[in-house]
Every structure is written in C-alpha cells, then in structure tokens.
C-alpha cells in the first residue's frame, strides 16, 4: 500500500498567500495557469504581466519573472516584452475593467497585430479592486456602486462581449470563453488555457481565454451564492465556447 500525492499547489506559484477575498475565483484561475506552466515546462522561461485590478499582486504569486502594467496597458507592456524577447513565453492576466474599458485600444490592436502572447482575461462583471463600480461587462440591470439604479443599457450601453468583439480579427489564433463554476468547467478551462499557450508556442498569433468569474465581495454575495448566481446569470449573457481556433487538435 502506497500513498501518492496527486494534487497540490503547483510549482509555478510562489508560497505567498493570495490576497483575494474568500471564495474569489481569481485564485482558481491562477492555479490553472500555474499548472499549465508546470506541465508545459515553461515556468523558467516565462515573463508575466499583471494588471491593475484585484490581481495586481499576481506578479508576486507566480514563480516567474514579472511586472505590473499601468491600468489597461498590460498587452502593450507584453508587446514590448515579447518583441524584445521573442523566445520567451509571455502572458498577461487582466480584469474586465482593465482589458475591456481603459485597455480597449491595446486589447484590440494587440489582437489585431497577432502579438504572440497569451491573455488570461477574468470577466467578473465588475471593478473588483476599486470597490464594485460598473464594468463594461456588467449585466443589464445589475446594480453596482456607479450604476446604483441598475445598468441602464440605453444610457450606458450593453455588456461588452470581448470574444465576440475580437473574433473577426485575423491576428487571433485562439479565443475561448470558459467558466470556473464546477469542477468540470474548471477542467475545461484548463484545457483552453493550455491551447492558448500552445498557440503562443507555435507562433500562431494572439491567444486569449476569457474566464467568466465571480466577485462575491462586490456582488454582495457569499462565495456559494456567487457561484450559483454566475452559473445562471453570467453564463446566459456570456455563452461559453471556442470562438477562434487556429491551433487544431494535435497538441
């Protein structure tokens, strides 16, 4: 009879405890990325770009060289890094405010240029770090601290669908929307992230994984409530699926 440790904190994470709220799925997304880095043996050759957002500390959590970009500019910073070091693996990790509001131009143009790095995009429909303001991805009617009467789509616009916006850009090599609300979804998300890194490794272009996530704190919900709410509301607004796949199935 033998014991085998089959699952544990991946090597690509440092020992530092995550600064996220209880039940916040940023932590799950981190772990998945770290697992892929380990599995693909990229950890030693990776440079990451953290955003400004709750995940601003991400560059401390991953066991890779890293920096934090100005709010919204992670893909510009990654462009600079990748162009200077084309043989390294580079990824950005960004929230919806960061990527789809202030960073819109950088997102669209990095994707259009087919920059050869990967973006992990956490869509939690809110500005988490600054205390729950409306994000471009906030759902119709949803109350936030800057949409106190509920998001009025006629006044402030509709939830922005990042994958749908980027899917026609030819520079995009892999684009998928995943969620983290069940173990099954988490496994699927991991596969997606892997494909994104493969796209990068193969130099096929830009890859982005939109991770539909939660923000229990600013949604005013318990962790479990937030998961249930997201399964229902978030996924019906943000359907999961593969939008662009130029990688193919041979891994």
């Amino acid at each position, binding site marked *: *009879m*033998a*014991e*085998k*440790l*089959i*699952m*544990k*904190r*991946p090597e690509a*994470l440092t020992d530092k*405890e*995550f600064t*996220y*709220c*209880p*039940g*916040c*799925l*940023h*932590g*799950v997304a981190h*772990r998945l990325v770290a697992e892929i880095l380990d599995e693909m043996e990229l950890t030693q050759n990776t440079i990451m770009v953290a955003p400004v957002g709750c995940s601003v500390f991400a560059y401390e959590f991953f066991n890779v060289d890293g920096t934090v970009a100005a709010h919204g500019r992670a893909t510009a910073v990654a462009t600079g890094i990748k162009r200077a070091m084309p043989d390294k693996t580079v990824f950005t990790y960004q929230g919806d405010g960061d990527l789809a509001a202030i960073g819109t131009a950088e997102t669209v143009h990095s994707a259009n240029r087919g920059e050869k790095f990967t973006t992990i995009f956490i869509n939690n429909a809110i500005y988490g770090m600054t205390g729950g303001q409306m994000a471009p991805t906030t759902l119709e009617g949803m109350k936030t601290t800057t949409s106190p009467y509920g998001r009025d789509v006629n006044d402030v616009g509709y939830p922005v669908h990042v994958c749908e916006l980027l899917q026609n850009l030819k520079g995009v090599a892999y684009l998928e929307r995943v969620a983290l609300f*069940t*173990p099954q979804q*988490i*496994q699927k998300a991991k596969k997606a992230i892997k494909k994104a890194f493969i796209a990068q490794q193969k130099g096929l272009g830009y890859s982005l994984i939109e991770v539909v996530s939660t923000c229990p704190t600013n949604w005013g919900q*318990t*962790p*479990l409530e937030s*998961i249930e709410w997201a399964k229902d509301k978030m996924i019906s607004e943000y359907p999961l699926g593969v939008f662009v796949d130029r990688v193919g199935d041979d891994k």
Partner: protein
Amino acid sequence: MPKRAYIEIDEERCKGCGLCINACPQKVISFSDGFNMKGYHPAQPDDPEGKCIGCGFCYMTCPDTCIKVYKITQD
C-alpha cells in the same frame, strides 16, 4: 471498502469560503468550529469513514490552493 484517498487542508491558508465543501461529492469536508489566525472558520477533512474517493474536486475548486489530495494505491 478500504480507504482509497484522503486530503490535507492547510487550515491557516484557508479562508473558509466553503467551495470545497460544496464541491465534494462525498461530503467529507466540513467547517472547523475554531478560528484560524485570519479569523475564519477553516475547512477541515471530515472523513471518519474513509469515503474520500480522491476525485480532486475540492482541490480544483479551492481558490486558495489549500488542499492536497493523496491517493492510496494497493500495491
């Protein structure tokens, strides 16, 4: 049935979110009554009958990487 698997939880790292408890198909995790130094009631393995199947759902859902899963192989 022999014990097939078990888990360890780093209770000081745990934030008591309960996601692992919710995800466990065998219902062999529960909240501790005490507080950890972060002030939370941490999750704890609660598997007196050895029902854990080592599915790793707890590990997968835990946002704070508190959980280790061990398989017991009979060889």
